């Protein structure tokens, strides 16, 4: 039997173990997005009075945001961990084993996906406990978990690419605010059709993060919205494919250099 699944599993297990043993970096990605969601729901509840607002619960509207925020946090943590491995020489140790680039990246991503799905379960549980009803029902929740895994692959591969490219945890932390700008210039707090400022509406409309959020939002407040789902899944898939390709190339370059 091929050793590949064992090797990928071993690397994923290490990734999860590391996260579990660093509560200081594992807990903020869970709690911070939920805290921000609660804060926004309290302050922006009046937005639901706007004509055309898709729901009368801002909490239900905002629940999509933690999924993407959490994914961004995971990107940073995963990237920083990989960069640290490069800096400390642990990556060289891995490079000396029979494990090749594809398996190294797959192992890294498998850990990120597992954590991403666990994060999604946490956000869904928080939403349910706060009284949010998922319009798409249990099947929608199941689909949401699949979507969370896909988004985790996309963002995890971006984080891995940055780590492999720069080899510096500090560089990745420096890029983090830039990733967050994408989140803020999106439809995270207001539906795109209700954004009154022209330039903001334009940026939100060309920002792929808007569509990633709206895909989740549709499952929570609309039900089965084919267009939103198609857009969200397509963008996440394209992001994941492109990010995995560039991360694989960078892994190959890094191993050649190694």
């Amino acid at each position, binding site marked *: 039997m091929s*050793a590949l699944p*064992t*090797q990928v*599993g*071993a*690397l994923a*297990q*290490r990734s999860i*173990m*590391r996260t579990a*043993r*660093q509560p200081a970096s594992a807990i903020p990605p869970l709690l911070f997005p939920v805290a921000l969601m609660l804060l926004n729901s309290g302050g922006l509840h009046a937005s639901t009075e706007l004509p055309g607002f898709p729901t009368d619960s801002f909490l239900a509207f905002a629940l999509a945001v933690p999924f993407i925020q959490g994914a961004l946090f995971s990107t940073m943590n995963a990237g920083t961990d990989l960069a640290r*491995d490069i800096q*400390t*020489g*642990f990556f*060289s*140790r*891995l*490079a*000396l*084993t*029979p*494990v090749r680039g594809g398996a190294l990246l797959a192992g890294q991503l498998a850990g990120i996906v597992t954590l991403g799905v666990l994060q999604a379960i946490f956000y869904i549980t928080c939403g349910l406990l706060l009284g949010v009803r998922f319009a798409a029902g249990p099947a929608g929740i199941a689909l949401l978990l699949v979507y969370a895994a896909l988004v985790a692959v996309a963002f995890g591969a971006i984080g891995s690419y940055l780590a492999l490219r720069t080899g510096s945890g500090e560089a990745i932390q420096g890029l983090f605010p830039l990733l967050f700008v994408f989140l803020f210039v999106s439809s995270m707090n207001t539906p795109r059709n209700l954004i009154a400022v022209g330039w903001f509406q334009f940026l939100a409309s060309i920002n792929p993060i808007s569509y990633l959020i709206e895909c989740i939002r549709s499952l929570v407040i609309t039900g089965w919205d084919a267009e939103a789902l198609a857009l969200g899944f397509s963008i996440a898939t394209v992001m994941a494919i492109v990010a995995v390709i560039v991360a694989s190339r960078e892994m190959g370059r890094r191993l*050649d*250099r*190694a």
Partner: protein
Amino acid sequence: MTRDNSIVVEKLVRQFKKGPRAVDGIDLHVAPGEIYGFLGPNGAGKSTTVLMLTTLLPPTDGKALVGGYNVRTEGPKVRSVIGAALQEAALDPLLTGRDHLRLQTMLQAIPRPERKARQNELLDRVGLTEAADRKVGGYSGGMKRRLDLALALVHRPSILFLDEPTTGLDPQSRTALWEEVARLAREDRVTVFLTTQYLEEADVLADRVGIIDHGKIVAEGTPAALKAEIGRASIHVIPRSEEDRPRIIEVLLRFGEKLGSERDLAVRLNDGLGMADVIRAMDADGIVAADVELRAPTLDDVFLAKTGRTLEGAATGEDGAPGG
């Protein structure tokens, strides 16, 4: 069929972009089962050589065969026969010693039924059984080095690269590691390529020593042969009274050439002379010394003879190459 576990290097070069020629056309031949000590100051090119021989850095020019495989074109095959403990113990502080070994046995594709036994065997061998379930972040430098060695041995390599394995270790940990390395070569016939900046380490462990300076090998041979090349012992005197100093140096200069600084009472003895000759001459002049010591030539003397500098002095002159 017997596996070839030799190392053959011809005209190996590593030139860094906009940097120095860290390794400048070296030739090496390490025989199967031999412990080869690669000695030199920081920045001499030791670590760069190890990185190339372990396939972690491509050579700019030249040829290197490790275990019969070409490091340029047969990387996976080279990696399958080597183990390496590089300069810094590359460990994850959040994992335990056992976690590290579990990960390594899985990545090295050790069959599942054998994994646990192999982990326990290696933990026992490096004396980490009791600390196996503690996070590595809490290990001492010596424990980290021993774990690093255990990880390098997981897949039973026939060639082992150790890059400054005892740097920063206390004497007890250093001795323990030396014993294990010697045992590996003696009992398991593992070829060991060991870089060090410690003369004593090369002297105690290595069957043969190569001395590298500024990317070039300046001397090679058994420690005994290299020291015999220098040949002459030195004599060092500690005066009982400071007033005797001029008279002592006058006597000493009859027997050889002055060593050390102005104040040192030491000479390299001329051929055919020994400590007894010096003591007899001091007695005849009525000089009583607090101590007289005869020192055999050291590898530092060899380094001094070949480069014009002492190894310790050379260590302060970094040349910019990564690692050693």
